[in-house]
């Protein structure tokens, strides 16, 4: 045991020198609201208190400019386009209003948790919040089957299957346009790497925004079953194709 002690001391002094270089880097490249002395002093104190500790990381929240090695302010990660993540009524309002306006054989009442999950994409906050990948997958499967069944019921034969129009019925373009037309994509939590902001042509990427529609279908199916989900597709989505 005795031989162990000197080695850790060496390691911690190495660790200290590494921290010095890091701090000098921060000082050189940022104008963030952190004082150099503060971190330095904190580290030294910590070093003295816990000389056995091998790894030390200064945890500082930084707003504005990003610095490698510094953890970002959580409230910055947990928001999209200035909208804060959460079950607030404002976030869920567009979706709730739309679901209330539906006239299906069963009243669609989904819990706030699942409504929030519908409007959260997996790119949001590194997937740490519940996101819609699984329900949108289920919804997509139902939509594809329902669309195929619809084509057959219209024509009475299989001629139109595999046509462009048939495959268009579950394309990202169609689903994203549907979400936009019903106004349910007003609040959507996802991560977009768009320097242009709202004027960017891809401000609403179709492959991401299409998951709203498919996860509404999936969420209905996961609570009320396939029949109601198909009824939703027939009464809501299919009339939208014709326009």
């Amino acid at each position, binding site marked *: 045991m005795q031989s162990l002690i000197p080695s850790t001391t060496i390691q911690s002094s190495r660790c200290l020198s590494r921290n010095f270089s890091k701090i000098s880097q921060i000082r050189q490249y940022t104008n963030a609201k952190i004082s150099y002395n503060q971190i330095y002093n904190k580290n030294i104190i910590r070093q003295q208190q816990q000389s056995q500790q091998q790894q030390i990381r200064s945890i500082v929240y930084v707003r504005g400019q990003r610095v490698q090695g510094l953890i970002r302010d959580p409230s910055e990660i947990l928001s999209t386009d200035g909208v804060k993540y959460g079950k607030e009524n404002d976030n869920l309002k567009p979706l709730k209003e739309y679901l209330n306006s539906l006239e299906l054989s069963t009243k669609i009442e989904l819990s706030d948790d699942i409504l929030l999950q519908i409007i959260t994409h997996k790119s949001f906050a590194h997937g740490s919040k519940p996101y819609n990948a699984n329900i949108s997958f289920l919804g997509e499967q139902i939509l594809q089957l329902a669309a195929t069944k619809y084509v057959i019921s219209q024509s009475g034969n299989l*001629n139109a299957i595999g046509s462009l129009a048939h495959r268009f019925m579950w394309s990202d373009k169609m689903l994203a346009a549907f979400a936009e037309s019903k106004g349910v994509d007003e609040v959507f939590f996802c991560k977009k790497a768009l320097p242009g902001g709202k004027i960017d042509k891809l401000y609403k990427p179709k492959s991401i925004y299409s998951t709203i529609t498919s996860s509404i279908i999936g969420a209905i199916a*996961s609570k009320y079953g396939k029949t109601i989900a198909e009824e939703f597709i027939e009464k809501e989505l299919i009339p939208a194709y014709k326009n």
Partner: protein
Amino acid sequence: MFSSRTAIGHKSASRVWNASTKIQNRLISISPAAVQKTNPNSNSNNEIISKKYKFSYETAKNKSIQNSHLSIPNNKFDFANYNNNNNDDEITEENAKLIPSIVSLHARLQLSPDYKYSTLVKSLSCPIDSNSNFNNQQLSIFGSHILSFYVSEYLLTNYPRLPISILKSTIDSYIGNFSLYDIAKNSWGIDEDSTSKLEKYLSNEPELFKFGRLRFIKKVTKPESNIIKYSNSINNPFELSKSEAFANSVRSIIAGLYIHSGEESAKNFINDHILSRQVDISSVFDFKEPGKLLTRLLKTNNMLSPTVRLISETGRLSNSPIYVVGCFSGNDLLATGEGSSLKEARVRSFVRALKAWYLYKPLDAKVPSDSNFNGMFVDDGEKFY
């Protein structure tokens, strides 16, 4: 240094070998594979056609149809007015009943009397040239949609926590080309029409009997040695690989079942013939950094980070020691692992803990298409870095 991947790979290879289906391992620390687009020079007809899918069941669902006799109305969503100008090639029901292999296939699959024999003949006819309309192209697309839905709803309700990449891999091992080939060839006994016209003539076989076998244009990937292939077109659009042709016949037979006997019987048929096959989902997982992943998983679920404790050991000083360790979160035992070194045992316990989480199975789960369905478990999604 010991790596986790070798340990898991070794284990899965020795434990389960599923008939003729080789399951592709999926790294789960990466996000699911997106649709790739081919380079625009090769196929620039339209955007949807040029998409390339990773799994064969996805490709089967999104196929485009090559049929020069199809007239498409101006309003493309007017599905009732898609007309086919060439209908004279179809085989009659009376003729279909004369083919022994069709009759025996009908009986073997225990199809209802409503199921037309001519549909079975159609299911076994892959497209051969653009003049003939009598083929299973559209039936197989419809069938793959039915199959895909029922298999995915089964997996989503029974294994709600599977990451999407694993889920798709598993669906493909149920209904991908190779699995369906195995069903068609080895369980249903569908034969391939490989004899030439001359051989048929010499064996005195009626012309009609060719309809009883699976007919398709074989894709030649490698010509025989000393033979040079001269061809104007690079690819014949009707060329199919053997597995795809057999798989399409299975998809078409299921579509026929929907058309003749309704959705419920198609569902039961899929339960009996497809979902009854055993697929070892746990062998699809391939964790690159199990310890990291487990720590992250526990953190997002507000649990204490994993600690590994030695439970028992034997033969530490011999050449074949065995250690049994437990992976704990606080006081909760997540999983145990054994191995010939402490490191191996530790990694194994991490992997088991992760698999126990991902392969969670609700008791007596109902699928959304069941009449007594009463809600299902909706997962939050896979946690990644």
